[in-house]
Every structure is written in C-alpha cells, then in structure tokens.
C-alpha cells in the first residue's frame, strides 16, 4: 500500500524562526512529489519535485528531494505569521493520482 508520512504532526514557532518539515514515502512507483499549503480553504501548490538533490526555491520557502532515502524536506526561513497553515505532501505513484500525507500544522506566533 502506498504511504506518505509527514512529521512533525504540528509545531509552534516564533516569528523569525526557521522550520523544517519532513515527508517520507513508500510507493510502488515514483513519478513526482508535491508540496501544498492549506490555510483555511483549498490547498495551494508550492513545489513539484521529480529529481534528487535539486533544490526548488520560492522566496523564503525551499524544498529538496532524496529519492534514495525516499524523503523530502520543506524549509521555511524567517517565518511570518502568514506562514501559519497546514503543509501537505503528496506523491504520485502512478500517472493518474496523488497520495497525500496527513499534513503538518504550523503555527507561527509573534
């Protein structure tokens, strides 16, 4: 059975801290890994990773994939209260669907 596990389940940090969110996976086949941010409503796309070792960056967010060890990390530097959200990791084991993890709930306090 395909599995995506995210850790930690939740965390609280102070504004300005750097956080690392983890996503490990076990899938029969691997095509891509995606990160989404979910605030109060619909998840919004952050990154798609297909190759090991190549960092994707967008502002203060970055992500990297390790296909040998079967995990990915999402880093957020200089966190802001607007970063408070649930971060979802998803893996595409086939060409037709994604398997999501349960998410990491991040709360950034002042």
């Amino acid at each position: 059975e395909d599995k995506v596990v995210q850790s930690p389940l939740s965390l609280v940090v102070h504004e300005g801290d750097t956080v690392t969110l983890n996503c490990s996976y076990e899938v029969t086949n691997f095509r891509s890994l995606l990160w989404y941010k979910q605030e109060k409503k619909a998840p919004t796309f952050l990154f798609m990773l297909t190759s090991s070792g190549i960092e994707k960056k967008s502002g203060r967010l970055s992500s990297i994939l390790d296909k040998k060890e079967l995990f990915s990390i999402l880093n957020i530097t200089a966190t802001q209260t607007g970063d408070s959200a649930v971060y979802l990791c998803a893996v595409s084991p086939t060409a037709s669907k994604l398997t999501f993890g349960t998410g990491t709930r991040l709360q950034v306090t002042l």
Partner: protein
Amino acid sequence: DAGITQSPRYKITETGRQVTLMCHQTWSHSYMFWYRQDLGHGLRLIYYSAAADITDKGEVPDGYVVSRSKTENFPLTLESATRSQTSVYFCASSERADGELFFGEGSRLTVL
C-alpha cells in the same frame, strides 16, 4: 472568472438522502478529481476522471457515484448519505494526473 468552483459550499442533510456536489472548471483541464478531507486522514481520493466519459475509482469510492458527460463538469453524488460521509469535499483539476492540482474551495457536508 476562470477557475474551479464547487457548489454548494455548505450542506446539511439526513441519513439516507441523496446529495449531489457540483464541480465546474473553466480551464478545460483533462483531469478532475474528488477528494475528501477528514481529521487524521488527510486528503483521500474518491474518484477521478481522465477525460469526459472516463472515470475511475480512487482510494475510498464506496457510497459515491460520479459522472463526466462534459469536460468542465464533474458532479459527485452520494446515493444514500451516511454519517460517515460527513466531511469536507474538494474537487480539483489538472492538465496532468501527476502534476499540479488546482483545488476548489471545498464543500462541507454534514450528514445527520
């Protein structure tokens, strides 16, 4: 406006009733998906469609029916709602099945 819209956004129904959640997208994306999101389970795929008139089961299809007669619409029907189907339902679309998904705002369904 272009995008993906779901209706209704909120629905309360009773056990045994039929409920249909609507999903409409204006991008002409080939792929459309229905997910449910429950605490502790994350997003779970109910059904997906690769094109008009092509649908397939996801991880949790029991109790649900879908159709896709037109590319832009992908309704989800609960034929006889049960309390376990109380959830938030998200519709999504994509140009590719394993690419970026664009989600609707969600439909919160409560079955009493």
